């Protein structure tokens, strides 16, 4: 090999040649990249849309669904979901005298008599059967002392299956009965049994009577529907039904979402903020300061969190049956920030050693500037994930506390307290529990799925293996 002999052109700068290096694709910022990856995740994207819809519901819901959540319609208690139902306006029912016949010849009550009573015949309605009343009359049965009236919501299969005993007539002369007991717009099977005081008629006849939804003229006036008897009016819609006090469930869910989402979003936001500052300072300074600061978080983690939530409430002097939204918020923030603090501390400990931080320090940057300008912005990805996973936890806690009566108290609705109220009437009207429960579950679910998606998109180290 010849030794190197410099030539004249060796040390002249190379002329810039445009087009030599072409960027194969445009460079993307961290956030653009994350957004692209999030968009590919269908579940997370759907969750994001649902969350936006839920928040919109909270904000503009009261304008879109203008029913007063506190308005009690005592004629419509625990109604199942109904939309755009019509009702017949009927005249105010007066007192019905009933139908009487001449008392049939009394047969002396004979204890040995067997099958002396015939089944009641020709049960028919008087007037139209509506949810205001069902008026029945029937033909007298020879030998009857009085009549028993039963109502069922299905065709009775045997004499054991006649359904609800509505009442009995006082005498045999009375051959009519008026039923006004919580009638709903459905078909009912009425059975009238004759009895002589010792035994009931062995056979029975049942009539099926379809009951039409109706309101009286005065009820129509109360609801500002101008209608006369015989008209058909459209009732106020209750898409989610009504609760046990006749309040519209949809309006209450919208109002309840304000409490649930307020606690669920504001509390995690505040505790993540507190945790970030605390963890940032602890991680940056390290050493003894770090050790001391981290002891505090060890301590907080060991505390039984729920007991302290309840203690806080008592400490604020909030008795049972009173709402305590602010104490709940405060307690959540003060008891829950340590998780974020640990996360941020770990991140800061790592980033502290990175070259760009060293460079900034060499240029004379102050500690607080370094923390807030360089370290925390670089942990924002994991922080966002942490925040998203914190929200379901806060919503759960609020629901849980309200459920056991330690959170939001009536009349303020929250999803948790509504579930609590709904649980009491779960067997007769399951929708009262179902709708608030669905909203809690849906919110928690969407935030969890979004959190999963965000973690995959933002944080390559924590990426879940799927």
């Amino acid at each position, binding site marked *: 090999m010849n030794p190197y002999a410099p030539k004249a052109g060796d040390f002249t700068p190379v002329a810039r040649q445009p087009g030599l290096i072409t960027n194969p694709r445009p460079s993307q910022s961290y956030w653009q990249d994350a957004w692209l990856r999030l968009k590919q995740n269908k579940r997370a994207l759907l969750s994001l849309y649902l969350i936006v819809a839920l928040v919109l519901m909270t904000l503009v819901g009261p304008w879109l669904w203008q029913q007063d959540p506190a308005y009690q319609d005592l004629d419509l208690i625990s109604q199942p979901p109904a939309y755009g139902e019509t009702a017949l306006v009927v005249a105010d029912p007066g007192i019905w005298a009933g139908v009487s016949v001449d008392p049939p010849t009394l047969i002396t009550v004979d204890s040995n008599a067997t099958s002396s009573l015939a089944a009641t015949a020709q049960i028919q309605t008087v007037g139209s059967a509506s949810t205001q009343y069902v008026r029945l009359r029937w033909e007298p049965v020879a030998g009857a002392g009085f009549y028993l009236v039963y109502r069922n919501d299905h065709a009775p299969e045997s004499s054991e299956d006649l359904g609800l005993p509505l009442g009995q007539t006082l005498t045999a002369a009375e051959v009519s009965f008026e039923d006004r007991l919580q009638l709903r717009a459905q078909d009912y099977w009425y059975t009238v049994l004759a009895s002589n005081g010792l035994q009931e008629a062995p056979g029975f006849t049942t009539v099926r009577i379809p009951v039409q939804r109706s309101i009286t003229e005065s009820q129509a006036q109360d609801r500002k529907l101008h209608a006369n008897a015989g008209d058909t009016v459209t009732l106020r819609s209750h898409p989610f039904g009504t609760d046990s006090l006749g309040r519209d469930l949809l309006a209450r869910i919208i109002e309840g979402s304000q409490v649930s989402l307020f606690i669920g979003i504001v509390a995690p936001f505040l505790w993540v903020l507190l945790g970030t500052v605390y963890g940032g300072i602890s991680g940056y300074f390290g050493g003894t300061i770090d050790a001391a600061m981290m002891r505090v978080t060890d301590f907080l983690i060991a505390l039984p969190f729920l007991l302290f939530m309840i203690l806080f409430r008592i400490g604020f002097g909030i008795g*049972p049956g009173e709402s305590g939204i602010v104490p709940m918020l405060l307690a959540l923030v003060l008891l829950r920030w340590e998780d974020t603090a640990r996360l941020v501390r770990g991140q800061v400990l790592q980033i502290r050693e990175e070259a760009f931080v060293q460079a900034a320090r060499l240029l004379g940057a102050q500690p607080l500037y370094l923390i807030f300008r360089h370290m925390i912005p670089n942990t924002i990805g994991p922080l966002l994930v942490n925040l998203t996973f914190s929200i379901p936890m806060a919503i759960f806690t609020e629901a849980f506390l309200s459920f056991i009566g330690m959170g939001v108290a009536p009349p303020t609705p929250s999803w948790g307290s509504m579930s609590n109220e709904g649980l009491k009437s779960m067997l007769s009207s399951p929708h009262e529990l179902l709708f608030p429960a669905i909203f809690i579950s*849906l919110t928690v*679910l969407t935030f969890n799925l979004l959190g999963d998606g965000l973690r995959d998109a933002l944080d390559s180290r924590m990426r879940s293996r799927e």
Partner: protein
Amino acid sequence: MLNYILKRLGMGVLTVWFIATATFAAMHLVPGNPLANEKATNAVIRANLERQYGLDQPVLTQYVIYMGNMLKGDFGIAFSEENRSVNDIIRETFPVSATLGLLSLLFATAGGVMWGALTAIYRNRWPDYLIMFLVILGISVPSFVFAGLSQFAILHLNKWTGVSLLPVAGWGSFRAMLVPALVLGLSTMAYLTRLMRSTMLDVANTDYIRTAHAKGLSTTRIFLHHQLRNAILPVITVLGPSIAIITTGGFVVESVFAIPGLGRYFVQSVAQLDYTVIMGTTVFFGAFLVLMVIAVDILYGFIDPRIRVEASR
């Protein structure tokens, strides 16, 4: 190791002391005192009662008395019930809660490990998708909804079969424990399933599994001896916090199923503002949880030698 245990215990004692102090402070921040609610009180009787219970003393003296009693294990007398001390209440109700909690923890861990292992075996096939869907449901639906729905289901099951297979509420027989314990353990089971799945998949990618395959071990043996054993370790770490979740979840499940446990009693005593019961149960619950977490951590140290090394450093 001993050093580590002592350190944890010391921290635990400090935590319990803080819980006791915070409870005391919370109770004394409330305006008035427990006797203020009583009806028949003229000033003299009230003063006598206050002297009886030491409420006329300065707060600091009360605190010393309270702490002294607590060290002796005496939580005082319940205000809302005649002739019953808080110790009696805890003695009667805690075994119920502990039984329920233990049973549900058993459900949760057995279920979590099993489902998690199953999802890892059937990764990205339909059993995996089905189980993971149920897991998401288990995490997202609050326990009181499950409790209500399961009562609904029991009712219809009994109606359908015509015999009383399972009681809808109550306590006493093993049959009565089954459904509440299952409901209570459900969310923990879901978390454990998710955890188990991800650690199983982690372990599956390790070198020693590849080595085991390379030297010709059977798949079953690798699965049981290498993969499952290593994947179970993280499940044990979260058992401590799980106990806490299960005991607090017990508040709701005990209330819904009318189980006479400590959780239900606590909720009632808060509603009645029965100070001594609140204070006693809080400190007791707190101490129990702290102890459980420490116990699990120490247990973990024995199981996994790596932790011991790290702790002694």
